């Protein structure tokens, strides 16, 4: 279980104070896929980096399995990090190493015997479907393949948690779907708890169990995905969810349905909706 307790992060640069996170209260239960969504600049990336202390919070605590990791020794922290895998938007593979070495790397660092490490890495590459590319270099792979290697690498040390920082944001829709399917499978089969940071609604919708909406350094809404999506309370959640949600309902309905569409108040949003309608296979009949 990951618990963030009144977590805050403030950057101090040249006499200026920038608040990245404020009063974050969050509990992520074992076995779930937890989404954290927000616009860019909301503090999502800082939040996920606070979970494994790549960023030190300036206030509050990060409690993992009952242990406050903000106060452990440096050595213990390195051990804890090995139980939390992480993948990134930019993949961040070792460009000068083969796919296989990228996956054995965390094991090598943890002191695993070379033979065992290679065995484990091949097992993981099999799971992500890239066993035949073990000797390729990252530059020879597509974006989706790179992310698969990164996932295999993140899972090498058998972590209990997997943090995903905008892991699908650099990928096309089809690849995004297949990576999300892979993550869901990993969650189901290996019982890895997954935390997903994203700005894309469809990512949360496709695989998350629960979601937190982050806006201007704070969590403004939190709950089961189905509930938050059905009835978003905060302005930002409405903005993120509603237009897409409403239109989606229609697209799924097989028969002729009559739907009253309330146009969003903001002009730019309304324009977005109109544009979407024009491209959609929906017949429009305007009414008063």
């Amino acid at each position, binding site marked *: 279980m990951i618990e963030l307790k009144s977590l805050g992060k403030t950057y101090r640069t040249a006499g200026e104070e920038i608040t990245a996170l404020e009063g974050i209260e969050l509990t992520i239960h074992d076995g779930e896929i937890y989404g954290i969504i927000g616009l860019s600049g909301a503090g999502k990336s800082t939040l996920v980096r606070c979970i*494994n202390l*790549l960023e030190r919070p300036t206030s509050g605590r990060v409690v993992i399995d009952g242990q406050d990791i903000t106060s452990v020794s440096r050595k213990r*922290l*390195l*051990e*804890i*990090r*090995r139980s*939390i*895998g*992480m993948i*990134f938007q*930019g993949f*961040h*593979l*070792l*460009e*000068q*190493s083969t796919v296989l070495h990228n996956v054995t*790397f*965390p094991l*090598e*660092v*943890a002191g695993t015997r070379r033979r065992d490490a290679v065995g484990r890495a091949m097992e993981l590459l099999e799971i992500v479907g890239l066993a035949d590319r073990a000797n390729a*270099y*990252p*530059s*020879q792979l597509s974006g989706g393949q790179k992310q698969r290697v*990164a996932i295999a*690498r*993140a899972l090498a*040390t058998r972590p209990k948690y997997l*943090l995903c920082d905008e892991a699908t944001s650099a990928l096309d829709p089809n690849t995004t779907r297949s990576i999300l399917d892979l993550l869901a499978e990993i969650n189901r089969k290996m019982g890895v708890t997954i935390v997903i940071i994203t700005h894309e609604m469809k990512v949360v919708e496709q695989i998350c169990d629960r979601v937190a909406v982050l806006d201007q350094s704070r969590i403004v809404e939190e709950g089961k995905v189905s509930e938050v999506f059905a009835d978003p309370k905060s302005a930002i959640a409405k903005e993120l969810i509603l237009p897409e949600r409403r239109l989606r309902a229609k697209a799924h309905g097989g028969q002729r349905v009559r739907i009253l569409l309330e146009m969003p108040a903001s002009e730019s949003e309304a324009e977005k909706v109109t544009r979407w309608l024009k491209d959609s296979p929906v017949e429009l009949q305007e009414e008063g």
Partner: protein
Amino acid sequence: MFSEMFMKLWENGLIQMGIWETIYMTVLSTAISYCIGLPLGVVLQITDREGICPLPVFNRILGLIVNFFRSIPFIILMVAMLPVAKWIVGVSLGNRAMIVMLVIASSPYIARMVESSLKEVDAGVIEAAQSMGTDNYQIVRKVLLPEAKPSLINGAVISMVTILGYSAMAATIGGTGLGQIAISYGHQRFNPDVTWCCVFLTVIIVHIIQEVGSRIAQKTDKRYRA
């Protein structure tokens, strides 16, 4: 076609010896300079504000020392460092002393070259390594240096060519090699063909270093393979 002096130098094997001495001084000085410059460059990089082990005050001081040595023109540094050479190798003349000068002059230069190569390593890759529980020593050994390898090799080629240039200057205060032949037999005794021969040979040596080095760097780099 060639002057008498040139023929004499050639027959006595002095030019051949000059080639050998130049190569020997350059290679040895580069090797020793890297033993100092490489760790120094690593320290400069990791203690930087953005590095993995930020120590801003220490970094400032180290940077100032490095810059101090780098800003002294080599010819002046050589003269100033004569006593140091004498203290380290016991003599202030000849190639052994010159190697000391070359090392003193080029280590800070190499440190900066190494630092800039390491700066090219994507911060994201380092962050990924940190997320896996990699300690700083392992990050240097297993991430920074291997990832920067092609750039480090290119840097080494540039450094080597610079050191070769320095080694010729060392002839003015008692070094040997092609520089010394050009100065004392070519310039001072009015045999331009000797000077030009040394220029030509130096150009060839530089070209070989450059070619071989670039090729190794290219071969090592796995980033742009189709």
